[in-house]
């Protein structure tokens, strides 16, 4: 299977850079599988899972907290606010974060607090979902 270059970048670091066979992202319109020579494509990504098929055929899943994907025929870049491999997710921390988000949501004074709490909750839930995920 032909391969292409994938980069996953967060403001804090370059999370992943390498050759891959396939990557699946969850866009607002649904799951999108990207293979080599995909048409040029740009989409915003809400919090969700990312599945990568490496050059050697192994598969890895990561949790992505909001971002965007930019596809060119030979190169795909994913911009993420934060991203972790499924096996590296700190489940206790994610659970605490979920509780905190729910509390914030209940106590929110205005729409903006509510929106922030909602996004935080989605990130926490996404982490929890992805950590137990074997496949999409």
């Amino acid at each position, binding site marked *: 299977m032909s391969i292409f270059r994938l980069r996953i970048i967060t403001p804090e670091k370059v999370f992943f850079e390498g050759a891959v066979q396939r990557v699946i992202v969850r866009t607002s319109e649904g799951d999108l599988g990207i293979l080599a020579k995909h048409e040029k494509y*740009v*989409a915003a990504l809400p919090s969700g899972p990312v599945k990568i098929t490496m050059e050697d055929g192994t598969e890895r899943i990561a949790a992505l907290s909001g971002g965007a994907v930019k596809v060119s025929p030979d190169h795909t870049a994913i911009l993420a606010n934060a991203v972790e491999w499924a096996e590296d997710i700190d489940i206790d921390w994610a659970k605490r974060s979920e509780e905190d988000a729910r509390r914030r949501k209940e106590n929110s004074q205005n729409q903006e607090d509510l929106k922030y709490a909602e996004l935080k909750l989605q990130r926490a839930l996404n982490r929890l979902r992805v950590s137990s995920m074997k496949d999409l």
Partner: protein
Amino acid sequence: MAGANMKAIKRRIKSVESTMQITKAMELVASSKLRHAKERAEQAVPFFNLLYETMSEVASEAVGFHSAYTELREDGAALLIVMAGDRGLAGGFNVNVFRLADKRIRELEAQGREVILMTVGKKASEHYAKAENRILGTFDNVAEKMTTYTALHMAEHIVHLFDQGHLALVEVFFTNMVSPLSQEARQMQVIPVPNLERNPGVQSLTHYEPSPEAVFNSLIPQYLAGILYCTVVDTYASEQAARRMAMENATDNAQEMIDDLSLKYNRARQASITQELTEIVSGANAQE
């Protein structure tokens, strides 16, 4: 007489020495913090470049592209985000950025625009606490442990206000670390998004989902968060660099003072010995 003078000099040397120990320690702390901060500032660059590149492409390739974030509104306030340090003792670091921001505030107010402020760093919130300008938010003690979520939280807040039509202009005032020896206070326009290349009429081959505008607008909070993250991290690195330099100078000055005082002390000691000798000799002479 000479004895009392010697004691006073000795005391001064002791006091300068202990000050020097403090400045030396602060210099070392600042240089180790600077190393980490510099790394962090450099790591943020690829993300931001790619984000900006993507946004430029969307704006330039999509036919009939139109977004509220690229055009200057007639009415609405100007939001200035001023970033300074959480502590002083960093030479002119805090003052320089305030000078730049204050000038801009006067300029905008002369144009009849309402100015609101957001401050990052304790020194900035202290500086503007007296000002009559409306403070939208203060973010103290966030710079050292700056995360993307803090930046995103600030960004969402700003986008929310913009979407409701309260804001026309967003500018960031920060300090750019040109090199560890030179830092420069800067002003950056964030909204309307500047310098996006436009070449209308070129049909794009890129597929945008759901639409170019939707992609562009959904990137705005990230773009804003990216800028805030980068500038906060850059400012923090500059603060450490400025403090390291200020403390290095202070340490050098203290060393100079100690050398000077030691010389004086030795002279006073010599003088007292000479005087004692003269007294003994003249005493012995008188006996004869």
